[in-house]
């Protein structure tokens, strides 16, 4: 039967993700990692993986567990797996981070932590991908947004496998010419599959459906949507080709990279133009805060892609770092924070008021949040993102740390808003005595027969 229920573990994924984001921002504000240290230094790798695995991947997996069933109209296959996946990823991440620090001689920890952590992460991501793929395959037909998610899941598997191989090289378990080639050319591929293939494509897929749903706009099925999808597929194919050549010949394939870059630029351009079309054809006149915030997130995708092209053209390392910062924290992270603002309220509303619908006056979803209070923190977050990226380009460590501290403040205040929504703290007086849900693990819905 085609139906979707509240995914019981999604909020646990979101909580873990937010803890990782806060930790990463705090470390950066304290001056750990880039730009105070080198781009490939162990502590930079700690911060980068806290953000990409801890914050962004957990956020995306939690969101997919809730929204893939909505996208394809089927319940999640094997619903008992999400806590297992969460445990694998969290323990894997913890070991991986210890492994990076071990490279620095931290407490004489064994560097094998890297390989072990990578293995647990690979296991967690594989189980997640299999579960989500099985859910996709159980659908009667696959809408195009689900195609983006499928490409994203494939990239996740490649990124995780490549990551585990890199971890083994760093731990000294793999040697020879291949390991040298992998460290030289593989890191960029690992990042491209992770940030580009997995996170960006999955975010595109989810946002297509969420944006059209929240704006009450007709689904996009036109030329631009197909162009975005097929260009993304070609870009991913090019990236896979570059990887194959690297494995076979230990050398980089610049033609493949150029093809990937062009196709990726086309995909991003088509996607942004398509989303702009969605905003134009919307039937809701006024934009809610999360939909206004999403515009900032999408703009960051354009900015980040532009910076990346500039960095690859000029070979400038600071610009490359700024591009990754904007793509990870501005586009993916920013979009994540604004969507969380709506999703947390929506899931809480569904949990608390769905059983009462039609039987008593229920509040609107918007009543669970106070947009006026949250708006300044979103502005602070995105402004700090721009300031931080600018500071990286111009090499100002102090400005970067101040901007990151402000960004952290914005995130903490937004988390406070999410918690208030969960606690029903902003509801009008009429519902003040309504029973509060649990903060993280929603109660399973009782199928009342009455």
């Amino acid at each position, binding site marked *: 039967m085609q139906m979707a229920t509240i995914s019981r573990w999604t909020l646990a994924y979101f909580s873990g993700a937010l803890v990782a984001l806060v930790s990463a921002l705090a470390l950066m504000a304290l001056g750990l990692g880039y730009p105070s240290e080198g781009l490939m230094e162990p502590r930079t790798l700690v911060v980068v993986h806290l953000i990409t695995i801890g914050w962004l991947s957990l956020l995306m997996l939690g969101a997919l567990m809730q929204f893939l069933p*909505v996208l394809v109209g089927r319940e999640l296959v094997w619903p008992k797996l999400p806590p297992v996946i969460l445990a694998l990823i969290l323990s894997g991440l913890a070991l991986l981070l210890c492994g990076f620090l071990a490279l620095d001689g931290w407490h004489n920890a064994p560097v094998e932590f890297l390989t072990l952590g990578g293995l647990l992460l690979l296991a967690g991501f594989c189980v997640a991908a299999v579960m989500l793929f099985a859910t996709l395959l159980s659908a009667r037909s696959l809408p195009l947004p689900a195609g983006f998610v499928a490409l994203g899941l494939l990239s996740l598997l490649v990124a995780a496998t490549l990551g585990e191989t890199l971890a083994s090289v760093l731990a000294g378990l793999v040697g020879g010419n291949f390991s040298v080639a992998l460290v030289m050319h593989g890191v960029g591929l690992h990042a491209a599959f992770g940030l580009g293939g997995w996170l960006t494509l999955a975010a595109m897929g989810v946002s297509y459906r969420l944006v059209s749903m929240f704006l009450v706009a007709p689904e996009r099925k036109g030329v631009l949507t197909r162009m975005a999808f097929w260009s993304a597929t070609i870009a991913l194919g090019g990236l896979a080709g570059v990887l194959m050549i690297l494995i076979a010949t230990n050398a980089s394939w610049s033609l493949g990279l150029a093809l990937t870059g062009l196709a990726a630029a086309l995909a991003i351009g088509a996607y942004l133009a398509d989303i702009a079309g969605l905003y134009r054809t919307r039937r809701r006149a006024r934009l809610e805060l999360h939909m206004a915030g999403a515009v900032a997130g999408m703009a960051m995708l354009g900015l980040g892609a532009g910076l990346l092209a500039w960095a690859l053209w000029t070979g400038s390392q600071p610009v490359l770092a700024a591009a990754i910062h904007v793509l990870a924290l501005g586009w993916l992270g920013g979009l994540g924070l604004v969507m969380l603002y709506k999703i947390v309220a929506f899931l809480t509303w569904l949990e608390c008021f769905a059983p009462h619908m*039609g039987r008593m006056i229920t509040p609107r979803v918007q009543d669970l949040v106070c947009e006026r209070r949250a708006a300044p923190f979103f502005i602070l977050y995105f402004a700090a993102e721009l300031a931080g990226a600018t500071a990286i380009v111009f090499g100002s460590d102090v400005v970067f740390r101040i901007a990151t501290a402000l960004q952290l403040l914005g995130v903490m205040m937004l988390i406070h808003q999410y918690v208030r929504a969960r606690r029903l703290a902003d509801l009008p007086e009429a519902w003040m005595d309504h029973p509060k849900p649990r903060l993280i693990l929603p109660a399973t819905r009782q199928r009342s*027969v009455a």
Partner: protein
Amino acid sequence: MTDALELDVRPILRNGGEPFGAIMGAINALAPGQGLKLYATFRPEPLFTVMAAKGFGYEATPLEGGDWQVLFMPTAVPAGSAASRPEDPESWPDPIHYLDCTDMDPPEPMVQILTQLEAMSEGEVMFALLGREPVFLFPEMQARGHAWVGDFDADGTSYRLMIRAGRQP
């Protein structure tokens, strides 16, 4: 016709317990038109009056060892569903309410549809037009005992949903 739901309260009675709650729980769980087959250690006379008030007739058969089997069957079919069976949309009457939810943002369609259903008697049918498949509405309708059929129109832009109201609590 669905098979009668079976409920054996003999273990409760033998342990000195009170089976009335279990019996009422089972009755509330019955699908429209479904009967209840009850096993007890005695002929449950007081229950016959209660069940008659709820629209059930009975057929009591003595079993070996002094136990009884009683089959309660609904006597009158509720008004409005003379030939309408929830599992067979072909048998449903024409819709008496129409709702256009295509311009509503989520979760408003869900609120409107459930509010309408609350005001309808069992067996009555409503029709709703939506911008997308209301996947979060389905579990709620299932929990409340409503039956539905739905599909996308030919060009896939609107979702057509026909709902047969279930029994009100």
